[in-house]
């Protein structure tokens, strides 16, 4: 199913059967439960996979599927509701004996006569700095960091208002901000008979705006003992509301080596691919088997046994239409060139091609580039090569950042924390160096003979040739219409015309 924005998208064209569900605004298409159930009914679907993002974690969609007699490929509506409310999840998981990030277990009142005083008292118990978080939150929305008591009230009001707009629920709570902590999450699969396994963990510490940029499996530097510990904590957390199908339990790993529970995402995650590569398990296929009522198979159980001591290392980078020079601001435009890397150990999951228009309508994610190799250093080397091979024209992407991090010493040593990007990414000099190279290349491009075809451009530069290129109407260098007068002649003419009398 697709909205009007995606009507010409490669994945829509690749589908055997595609159904339009509405206009560009997500509220009228990808967030419209009625339109989605209608499309599933119309196409005679037995089951519906909600993907990630949009309605994938909403109990509302799971219930609507049940009412329509369609199998929802994901956890039950009860699990989605119980774990979807971050506060109810924190309470239940804490009662089950899993350490949760210190903070409040009940909502903070933001309005009312004594609200400000009570909130301040509870904040003092949590300690500074702290985070104000939305109970219904996700994707960094409804989240504020507060360093001083004086800023608390404003942050509470802002976060609550933002959460009410984004999720229809303005409940907020407080959580201690853990400095130099890592984000470590565990991939879980559960079947309808009640078995739950962990397929390994991922480190997703490298984030901007509380959204992940780089993810890897396994988390670097953990001992098999630490892996077993966090896998067991994740399974314990998932048991609180029962889990059939796929979910991810997220933890903070403090500098002292202790794990603290954050939340459970009751869906397939964007970064599930790195776990697929390392475990050898096709997670979407397993989701379908589980939804069809099968128990976890032999291969899944074996992969779970091997998870504490994985035999390979996978890294994913998110290639998004964002400018890494200006705070990863999303950019729009038309992709004019798109060339993906390839070869052994490379996987690219993409939804665009040359000619695709990048709009501000949805997430700026264009592609996920994944690499796998026997160990982390070889995986990083492979990533460096693949990022250099990835060519995107027409829009700025996050590729310069990925090129940098793949060669960064701290990242190479596995020293990551959630503030990594803010603390270490200084794009100015890196971009300037590239700009100077770009200037030399642009100048050299004027020496490429006019009629030389682009594809064979490498061998087509006459030695020592300074022949000016023609005036042009855009397009590939060399493939343009040659004109008798080159730019030099035109330039001279222009200068004569504009010379002040």
């Amino acid at each position, binding site marked *: 199913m697709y909205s009007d924005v995606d009507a010409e998208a490669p994945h829509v064209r690749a589908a055997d059967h595609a159904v339009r569900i509405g206009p560009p605004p997500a509220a009228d298409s990808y967030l419209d439960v009625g339109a989605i159930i209608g499309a599933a009914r119309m196409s005679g679907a037995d089951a519906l996979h909600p993907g990630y993002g949009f309605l994938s974690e909403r109990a509302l969609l799971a219930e609507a599927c049940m009412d329509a007699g369609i199998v929802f490929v994901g956890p039950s509506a009860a699990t989605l509701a119980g774990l979807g409310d971050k506060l109810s999840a924190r309470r239940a998981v804490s009662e089950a004996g899993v350490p949760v990030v210190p903070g409040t277990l009940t909502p903070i009142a933001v309005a009312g006569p004594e609200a400000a005083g009570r909130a301040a008292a509870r904040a003092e118990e949590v300690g500074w700095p702290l985070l104000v978080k939305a109970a219904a939150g996700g994707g960094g929305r409804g989240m504020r960091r507060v360093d001083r008591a004086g800023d608390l009230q404003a942050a509470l009001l802002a976060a609550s208002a933002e959460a009410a707009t984004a999720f229809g629920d303005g409940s907020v709570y407080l959580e201690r901000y853990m400095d130099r902590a890592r984000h470590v999450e565990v991939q879980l699969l559960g079947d309808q008979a009640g078995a739950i396994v962990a397929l390994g963990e991922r480190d997703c510490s490298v984030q901007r705006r509380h959204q992940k940029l780089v993810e890897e499996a396994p988390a670097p530097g953990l001992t098999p003992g630490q892996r077993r510990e966090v896998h067991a904590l994740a399974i314990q957390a998932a048991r609180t509301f029962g889990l059939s199908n796929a979910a991810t339990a997220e933890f903070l790993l403090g500098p002292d080596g202790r794990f603290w529970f954050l939340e459970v995402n009751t869906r397939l995650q964007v970064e599930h691919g790195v776990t697929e590569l390392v475990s050898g398990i096709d997670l979407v296929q397993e989701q379908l088997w589980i939804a069809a009522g099968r128990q976890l198979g032999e291969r899944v159980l074996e992969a779970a046994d091997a998870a504490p001591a994985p035999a390979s290392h996978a890294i994913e980078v998110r290639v998004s239409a964002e400018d890494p*020079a*200006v705070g990863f601001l999303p950019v729009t435009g038309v992709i*004019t060139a798109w060339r993906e890397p390839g070869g052994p150990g490379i996987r690219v999951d993409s939804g665009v091609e040359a000619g695709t228009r990048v709009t501000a309508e949805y997430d700026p994610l264009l592609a996920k580039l994944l690499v796998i190799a026997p160990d982390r250093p070889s995986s990083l080397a492979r990533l460096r090569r693949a*990022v250099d091979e*990835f*060519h*995107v*024209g*027409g*829009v*700025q*992407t*996050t590729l310069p950042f*990925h*090129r940098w991090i793949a060669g960064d010493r701290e990242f190479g040593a596995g020293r990551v924390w959630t503030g990594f990007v803010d603390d270490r990414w200084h794009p100015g000099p*890196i*971009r*300037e160096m*590239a*700009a*100077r*190279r*770009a*200037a*030399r*290349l*642009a*100048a*050299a*491009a*004027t*020496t*490429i003979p006019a009629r030389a075809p*682009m594809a064979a*451009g490498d*061998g*087509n*530069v006459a*030695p020592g*040739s*300074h022949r000016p*290129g023609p*005036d*042009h*109407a*855009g*397009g*590939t*260098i060399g493939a343009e219409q040659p004109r008798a007068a080159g*730019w*030099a002649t035109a*330039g*001279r*003419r*222009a*200068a004569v015309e*504009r*010379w*002040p*009398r």
Partner: protein
Amino acid sequence: MTNPDGEGRRKLPHGSDLPGRTPDVRGAEALRVTIGGPDPIVVELEPEPQLGPEAGRRVHALARRADDVPGSRRFEVVVGGWRFEATVESAAVARLRERGRRSTGRTRHERLVLRAPLPGRIVGVWVSRGDVVEAGQRLCSLEAMKMENEMRASRAGTVEHVRIEPGMRVELGDELVVIA
């Protein structure tokens, strides 16, 4: 305009002249490259043909735009994942243009000189020295090729000189009225 005026101009190690110097005989060869962006980078350099193969892979010609400087070419260049828009033109031409712009700029700011667009005969003068004129106000009338052409002020100001009187013959480019 794609070409900023001098601001933020820097030089490559192998760059040629400082901008603003008299173009020398190599002037036709040297190129000025402007890398666009919020903080544009302007360099002058000579093309290095040995970079051609790499340029063939990383440089893509962009379509001309209406406001492009004549004789300039625009390229998209992708280096290390960074996407740049580069404008390339002859360094000598760019300097000439800048000089031209500077002098017209001074004229525009300090005084407006109204010159005869055609050879002809003055048939009417409606202002005299010291008059304050509005933009669009008529100043004089020139008969040429059996047509009467009204000359109007392109901006407001004070009339500094009137070089003409009715019945006078003028040649192309002669000064008619000066507005300060």
